């Protein structure tokens, strides 16, 4: 795939953030980096959308935040998954896989489906 930056589908960002937090608490900057790297730099999350998304997730109780010190000893706000967030991530992942599989099946098809008479 060309190294084009993919536009994020609406609602996708939330799942990505939740997924990013699966391995432990992260601050916002680390989340962008993680998503960027994990998607082989094909997804770049803009700060202007990341932070509002984080705050909304916190408002919904899917993540919670706490102030801490970053690796370079700066104070940073760390986000972690709540149990509710973890549950949501599992559901969304299932939906996403099913969706991606379905879309993939069609887009990768080489011949039209068999007609019913056969």
């Amino acid at each position, binding site marked *: 795939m060309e190294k084009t930056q993919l536009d994020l589908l609406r609602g996708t960002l939330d799942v990505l953030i939740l997924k990013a937090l699966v391995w432990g608490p992260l601050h916002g900057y680390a989340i962008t980096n993680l998503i960027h790297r994990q998607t082989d730099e094909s997804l770049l999350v803009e*700060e202007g959308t990341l932070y509002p998304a984080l705050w909304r997730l916190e408002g919904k109780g899917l993540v919670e935040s706490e102030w801490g010190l970053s690796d370079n000893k*700066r*104070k940073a706000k760390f986000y972690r998954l709540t149990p509710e967030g973890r549950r949501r991530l599992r559901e969304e992942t299932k939906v996403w896989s099913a969706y991606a599989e379905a879309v993939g099946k069609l887009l990768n098809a080489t011949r039209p489906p068999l007609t019913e008479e056969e």
Partner: protein
Amino acid sequence: MSAVPIWRRYARLFGFDVRSDVDDELQFHLESRVDELVAQGWREHDARAEARRQFGNLHDVQRKGQLLLMEMERTRQRSDYWDTIGQDIRYALRTLRKDRVFTLVTVAILGLGIAANTAVFSVVNTVLFRPLPFPDSQQLTWLTSARDSSARNPGVGGLSLVTYRVDVFEEYQRRNQSFQDVTAYNPFFGNSEYTISGRLEPQAVAGVMVAENFFPVLGVKPLLGRLFTPEECKKGGRPALLLSHAYWRQQFGSDLSIIGQSVTLGKQQVTVVGVLPDTFDFGSVFAPGQKFDLFVPLVMDEVRNWGNTLAIVGRLKPGVSVVQAQSEADVLFPQIKEVLTQKWGDYSTTITGLKEFVSGKLRRALLVLWGAVGLIMLIVCVNLSNLLLARSAARSKEFAMRTALGAGRGRLFRQMLTESLVLSCAGALLGLVLAYGLTRYIAHQGSIALPLLSSIRVDSDALLWTALITVSAAVLFGLAPGVKASSANVQETLKESGHGLSAGKNHHRLRGVLVISEVALACVLLVGAGLLMRSFLKVLDVDLGFKPSRAAVIKVDYDGADVEDGSRRGAALQEILRKVGELPGVEAAGVTDMLPLGRNRSWGIRAKDREYQKGEFLASIVRIVTPGYLGAMGILIREGRDFNWLDSSKSERVVIINETAAKKFWQGANPVGRLALVNGRDARVIGMIADVRDQNVEASAGPEMYLPMTQAGPEGGELVVRSALPPESLGPAVLKTLKSLNPAQPAAEFRPLQHIVDRAVSPRRFFVLLVAAFAALGLILASLGIYGVISYSVVQQTKDIGVKMALGASAPQVQLGVIGEAMRLTLIGIGVGALGAVVAAELIASLLFGTAPRDPATFTIIAVLLLAVALLAGYLPARRASRIDPIIALRST
């Protein structure tokens, strides 16, 4: 991630700061990006610009962040708040469950207090505050003619003096500008007492004559059918009647087809044109304690020459005040007098709001009742404060432990308040159940002559009031223990041996003050109740002038009741009285048209040969009676003789007057044998009787005259029978005799004369009963309080008492010490209470009867009663103290 820096813990110390939270977070992001760019070889300055560029619209994100975080913070605070409250409530429930006896006692005390308050509030609210049950009832007014001029002739003349002639009413109705309309009814209910028959067994019914526009002015719409038409209200119109809802339900089984049917009323066929709604209770507004079954048109032309027959109710125009209507009336009535050339004196009128007329007289009594339950609630609070204090002393270890574990003082304080709130809510639930029962009971006491009684109920206002007193009570009685709990000295308390003697003393003093205030409050309450009770006994003791015991009354229907010529009536009545007199056990019997303490009317009377001052009021209550009535009632004849059957329609007209009338019209000279003018006609005074409390048990009699039924037109008839036999056993025989003489005789109740007296004193009895019950409750609570404090202090001083006994103090000495403490507190309480009672007694002075507000007997009895109760309450713990075994007491800490 590293641990939270210590300063962050205090970030919220000065309230949360959303702006810097957002700024900090985004700043960190930018810094990190700059670091990364620098690491990639950018120059610091350029890196900074690049980071900003990549970020995009920083301001926009900042604004969004502030909004979102603000919202989040609000939600969080709310849930924090509810969380703690939930915790507090759970904790309170747990501790209260552990202490079951304490909880039960507390809730019971609170329940009683709140029940009394809610019930009395419901009464006060219904009678005093709630508007009358009519649309726009604030526009409704009552007109009283002031001819009574009460200052000069207190209680003289009765209803006739406060009512209006038809022409005066019509003239006023035509001339006034203040009212949308004025209407009238005939308050001489005897004019409309009938025997109903036709569809039913003949029975007596009470009706009211109302003007055509009576219901429209009040805003009452019929439930079924229609109101009266103008034709039905004209002389010779088609007879019609409206049924009250209650009568329709009881006698006609709520039969819808009754409309348009006719019943026999007296001797007339009358059509039922409508049924009134159950929200309309004529008696409860206009004639408390009486029941009315039906309404008939007041035909103005029929009563035009009856004299003063109308009570007037008006509906003011919107925006017109009672004062404006009054000043108009002040001008109008003298004009009307001139136009009509009235010789009946002037009709100068006082206009009051209808609500004021209905309940104004009860205002003070009800406020006193309200005050009494307020005192009860205070006593309840003091009592609970005491109980909770004792309990918090026992729990001081628990509080100290929680403080040591980091519970803030505020939190402990809140915890105590939550506990008291939980308690008082439980008490409120119990109280509401009791109050609901109590108000239902009161509302169904139809025989109590209090207005609006039947509509008393626990309504939303009462619920609000209950909530209010519940919360205030919780705060009031939770405050002292709360402060105590949160200010406990942790170290002192936790140290096993540290008994905190000084703290204990403080504690003890506070409890002493509580007991004193409790006794004082109870003292005020008891003295008030005592004074009212004494007044009530005095009222019962009043010499009525007739003897209600061993006499009973039945409504009687007789031939010739409504004819001008009295001879037919005389014959019928003589026969009735002869037959009834022959019944075994009957000592005396007589008929009157109106009994004392009930309805009345007055006619003009004066001595024929005397001159009177101009303006002197020359009329008196008149009762039309048969020979034997005075004897049957037990009324004493002072001079002269009773009527006999020789006083007939053909013989000389005769009259008997009472002592007050003799004093008034003959200036004290013996009137017997002299000529009087009764309604302008000569009548020979043949007797003078002792005064009878004719209108009011509590007011001395006005002038009265009695005329024989053969010579004057009676309004109905009441047969009074004096007998040693109980009314229940005599009743059937009397009724059978009456029926045998007159088949139209209604199946009326044979009721003891005492009932009439009872009804007259029922409002006072009602108040006294309630106040006495509240006072008893107050006394019980106060004694519980004394008992609690003394026995608690005995427990606390177990060690001291043990030491004293080990040093040789005898059991009586120990007992004396303990009882002395109880007595000391009680005496101080009585002293304070007596002062309060003097003030309270002045406030209720107008409600007293024959009792001075500082009645020494009442004050003494109450003081002795309180001391006796304190003695008992102190004795029980004292006995326990004297049985303390010094060895055990000293060994145990």
